[in-house]
């Protein structure tokens, strides 16, 4: 394992999970991509509202899962969090540092604290570099002097992620997809970051390999006290890996709660529909052997364009509970019960719980 490297002076939190000890805090984060017309005289004709005002915080040592369908802005959010992209508005505070508008050079020291795991293990590794060069690159780029030398440290990292340290001089093409993802993870860990943003870390991998990488991420979290933001569309994977889960729809967070709470009692209709759409590996058949389909909520149509998102509640065009108020008043992300925030006028699963803090509730409905 690498020895501690000189990092900016920050409180040496050992990863306790006290409430309020947030490593990452995001408020009102906005990213609009301008849409322009014209070649000589470019004028703005609109904006893709990829991320449109989201708040979240992640406590030390915890895992936040960010789920949603393609185009909901989850990847853009991830890129903003580690400042691969410039936010249009809002604030990002990492470990007490406001990083919202830092320039690239100013960002560099902080890059040791925050790292990213990419989705595609085939395109995120340079095919012309050896594994040693890839995993050692963070040391070179950050001009970090590591005791024992880069090679020794890289080999330790390879061992940490379950690769053979002898493979130091091999090239990415000699490895399978799962092994490449491990190489990417080793590179991520080189500088001992505190926060890791993982964008679909296992979606390119086969099921049996997925489990290996998920277990590895969990072991590393336990050993090194890492904090994760895991972006994924696979709701089963997110349930497995996360402590807290945020559901995004068209650039907004529509629901955020602790994992068990969210999966047991989802309150936003979109979350309910999303969970019911997941195919269950348990065939249903009638006593006569006839195959049956599971009852599920069928959402109609596709996600609307983020260029012109629906007014007020963005889900109202596909929601089966939508009423007049949903088309006119945007529901706030309200804390219905402690730790469970929902942006809906008519949340589900509210009957027995002491709910009804915000907005009119529809009472007991299916």
């Amino acid at each position: 394992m690498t020895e501690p490297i000189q990092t900016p002076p920050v409180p040496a939190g050992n990863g306790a999970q006290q409430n309020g000890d947030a490593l990452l805090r995001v408020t009102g984060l906005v990213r609009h991509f301008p849409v322009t017309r014209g070649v000589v005289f470019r004028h703005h004709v609109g904006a893709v509202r990829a991320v449109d005002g989201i708040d979240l915080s992640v406590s030390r040592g915890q895992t936040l899962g960010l789920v949603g369908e393609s185009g909901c802005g989850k990847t853009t959010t991830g890129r903003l969090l580690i400042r691969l992209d410039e936010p249009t508005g809002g604030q990002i505070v990492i470990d007490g540092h406001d990083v919202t508008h830092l320039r690239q050079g100013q960002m560099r020291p902080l890059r040791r604290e925050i790292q990213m795991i990419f989705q595609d293990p085939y395109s995120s590794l340079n095919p012309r570099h050896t594994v040693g060069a890839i995993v050692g690159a963070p040391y070179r780029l950050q001009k970090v002097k590591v005791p024992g030398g880069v090679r020794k440290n890289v080999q330790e990292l390879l061992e940490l992620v379950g690769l053979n340290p002898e493979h130091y001089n091999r090239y990415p093409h000699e490895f399978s997809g799962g092994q490449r993802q491990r190489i990417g993870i080793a590179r991520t860990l080189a500088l001992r970051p505190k926060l890791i943003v993982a964008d679909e870390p296992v979606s390119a991998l086969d099921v049996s390999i997925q489990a290996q990488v998920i277990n590895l991420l969990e072991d590393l979290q336990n050993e090194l006290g890492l904090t994760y933001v895991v972006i994924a569309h696979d709701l089963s994977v997110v349930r497995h890996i996360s402590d807290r889960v945020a559901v995004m729809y068209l650039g907004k967070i529509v629901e955020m709660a602790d994992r068990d709470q969210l999966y047991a009692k989802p309150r936003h209709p979109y979350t309910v529909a999303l969970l019911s759409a997941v195919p269950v590996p348990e065939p249903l058949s009638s006593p006569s052997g006839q195959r049956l389909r599971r009852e599920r909520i069928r959402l109609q149509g596709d996600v609307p364009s983020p260029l012109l998102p629906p007014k007020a509640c963005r889900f109202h065009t596909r929601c089966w509970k939508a009423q007049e108020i949903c088309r006119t008043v945007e529901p706030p992300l309200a804390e219905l019960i402690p730790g469970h925030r929902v942006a809906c006028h008519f949340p589900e699963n509210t009957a027995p719980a002491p709910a009804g803090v915000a907005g009119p509730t529809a009472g007991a409905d299916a």
Partner: protein
Amino acid sequence: MAGSMLEVRDLRIHFQTDDGTVRAVDGVSFSLDRGRTLGIVGESGSGKSVTSMGIMGLHHGTNAEITGEILLDGENLVAANPGRVRELRGSKMAMIFQDPLSSLHPYYTVGAQIIEAYRVHNDVSKQAARQHAIDLLGRVGIPTPKTRVDDYPHQFSGGMRQRAMIAMALSCDPELLIADEPTTALDVTVQAQILDLINDLQSEFGSAVIMITHDLGVVAELADDILVMYAGRVAEYGSAADIFGRPDHPYTWGLLASMPRMDRARITRLVPIPGTPPSLIKVPSGCPFHPRCRYTHLTGGRCDTEVPPLREAGTPGHAAACHLTAEQRRQQWDALQAGKVPGEAEEPVSQGPVSQGPVSQGRAEA
């Protein structure tokens, strides 16, 4: 099972390459009746797509060496001349591909592509074919098909493109429909729509469907029978209830244990299959799964020398290629259900100084 609509007997598809012979499919047999759905499951490189392309006659003109028999209503497609297979392809059997964006031609309207497919096999006027295309688009749930028929593929969303692909595949009322990962590129809510659509269309047209996927959830939703493939061979074959209720092959066990599941209480740790899938050039001797199998010590060393035949173990119609006796399988599966995994008794991980994993390992009653 005489008289099945599709019978595949001892199919072998090998490719000669500079590195050696790739045994992509190595002795696969199955049969399929009208109105039934067969799910073929396996990881990448297990030969599931090569099998389906072999049935469709799409290896013609490549260096594939195909032996064995593919009987479609008694007609052997392996021995048939390419012209005859071409006649059948599209009319009697059709295929839906994984990526609808790259399987639709970007220069032609969606309508033109459906019309072309229809007119190749049917002697009808352009107007009649166009009307047929509009009907089909409406049938697969494209809104306002009269205008959308003249749209280009890029004007369709991912889900709509897959619907258009299905419309094209159905244009000649095929009796056999092969869907190769039809929903892998889609979001869960859209995936649910497409699976519903395939299911509805099958009951309406009574065609036989082969559903190729790596997602056990998807096959559990749709398939009557399931073929689990590993390294070009059949590992297990049986009804959906058998495969999910009482699987008989350690590879199937591994697949089931390595997926996080939303329909069960959350488990603390996934059980991955160790290692990686083998190269199809150097398939391991004996049982191709033995280097990754946790049960080889139970068979007295036969696993790495003898290829296990695919044979029925307990229930008729449920066969597995494994040297374990029926009694051993029952014991091992029950042990696995009880959470006991051989060789994983102690957790070798988290010997690190701090351990601050998720505190609450509570369970959701989802």
